[in-house]
């Protein structure tokens, strides 16, 4: 069980354990793209299973799928479109938070943009619920804000 030299990590796999106890394998070069994982590897060594408390078995395979493509340089607009096509808004949010926790920059940027695109056409009420934000305006303040911008207010209803 000799420690392999760092120069030959390209074929090495790292074991990741999700918060709900499942184990997934990922190539060391892909793990490098997730700074949190890399930090844990640096601290704990690359032979043991890396615990990821905040990522679960539903999201991790998708994240691994993304970075598998990334290390072979195959990420295209089409791939990214396909990647999020069947995900609903909440699933994207969970994936995004996981990418944030893992410090996975490329995925973070991509999902942030995807969420922004999805929110463009949503109502104010929907966005509030999505981010779990409480409305601390009084009804008078809120109606004044809307009235001032009546000429450009989109007035999208939540069920549209």
């Amino acid at each position: 069980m000799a420690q392999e030299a760092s120069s030959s990590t390209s074929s090495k796999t790292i074991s990741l354990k999700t918060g709900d106890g499942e184990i997934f394998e990922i190539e060391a070069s892909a793990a490098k793209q997730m700074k949190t994982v890399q930090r844990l590897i640096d601290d704990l060594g690359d032979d043991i299973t890396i615990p990821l408390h905040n990522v679960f078995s539903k999201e991790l395979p998708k994240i691994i799928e993304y970075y598998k493509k990334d290390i072979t340089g195959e990420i295209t607009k089409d791939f990214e479109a396909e990647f999020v096509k069947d995900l609903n808004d909440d699933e994207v949010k969970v994936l995004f938070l996981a990418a944030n926790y893992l410090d996975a920059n490329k995925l973070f940027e991509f999902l942030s943009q995807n969420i922004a695109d999805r929110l463009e056409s949503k109502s104010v009420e929907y966005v509030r619920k999505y981010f779990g934000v409480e409305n601390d305006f009084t009804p008078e303040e809120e109606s004044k804000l809307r009235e001032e911008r009546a000429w450009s207010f989109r007035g999208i209803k939540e069920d549209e």
Partner: protein
Amino acid sequence: MKMIKVDDENEGRLNTDIIFDILSRVPAKPLLDMKCISRGWHNIISNRSFIKAQLQNTQLDLNGFIVQDRYMISKRDIKTVSYIPVDSKNAAKLVHHTVFSFLPEDVVVLASCKGIVCCRSCLPSPNPTIYLCNPSNREWIQFKWSPPCDITESIALAFDFEPSKFKLVRLKRIQLNNYEDENEDEDDFFFTFELYCSETKAWRKSTEMCNCKDDLIKNRGIYIGGLLHWLTEGDQILTFDVEKEMSLLIPVPVPLENEFRTVAACIGEYEGRLHYVQVSEQGLHVWCLEDLYEFKWILKDCKLLENFEAEYPRFFFNLKNRVLESEDTTNPWMNPLGFKDGKLLIKVAAELYIYDMKKDKMVHACSFLQLKPQSMSHPTVFPLSLTLVSLKDA
């Protein structure tokens, strides 16, 4: 962009930094609505560094057209300003009249550039003022409009997103009798340029003059890539390089056959380039200026009047004949008024339509009466995009 170190407390929560990142990728229009979500969000979206990030991550989209009437000859201004939104979810075609009501007085709109609007006091006025404002956040700055204040003069805005750096270019038409000319009755007309620089906060006359026999029509300057363009009555587009202070006359793509014909044309920006839109018996033509100094125009879009008639029989009954009949009058039956980002505001008889060039779709915008018209001449139209830019940072 900051990466957030998630500690136990923040686990799984969308904190301010994450929200900042997502929102900075949202275009201005939905973002302005999101200001109502909470006080915290209102603050994030109004924050200076947020606005800077958002400008870098997003593109400006055309939101609507500002429309204002002008008297042809008068010493008084018309105070009504109308606004026609481009995408209206409302079935009732709403025309707004209070977009500029946040300003201290009634104004005449002079220019619209990247979401910032330049306007001036209505004349006669005891204290003529120029305003630079952002209707999206109801902020404005003002400065004196130095005399002589001519009701017909054109002032254009050169703005490149940086609120502290903008220029205004004031165009005046003068007449110099050229006695040395063989034809002693011939008067020479020139355009003169005066610049206001935000950094010096002063007006300065430019040494540049442009000899042009034609006056401006659809009196507004369009700023694209450091250059201002104005349409004239004749075959030419007056162009002014704001940095170099040099002027140029660009011939229009299709020279006018008949000098006395009223031009049913307008200019506007699309994909960073100057476009020229013309309606004639040959149809609607949209040209793009591909090379400025070579005067090279390419035809981007072309639609026959017969096709408009066939596709929209309710709107355009007998269109081609009507256009032909009106060709020698001062009132074209089908008149393109404003163009930006592939969308054209067009007046046909007493109705206004918006034609989307990219989708080849024509929608009815409103009736001309909804604009509360007060003069016989054609209104001046300014495309407006929404922006978060704060002029208070100037």
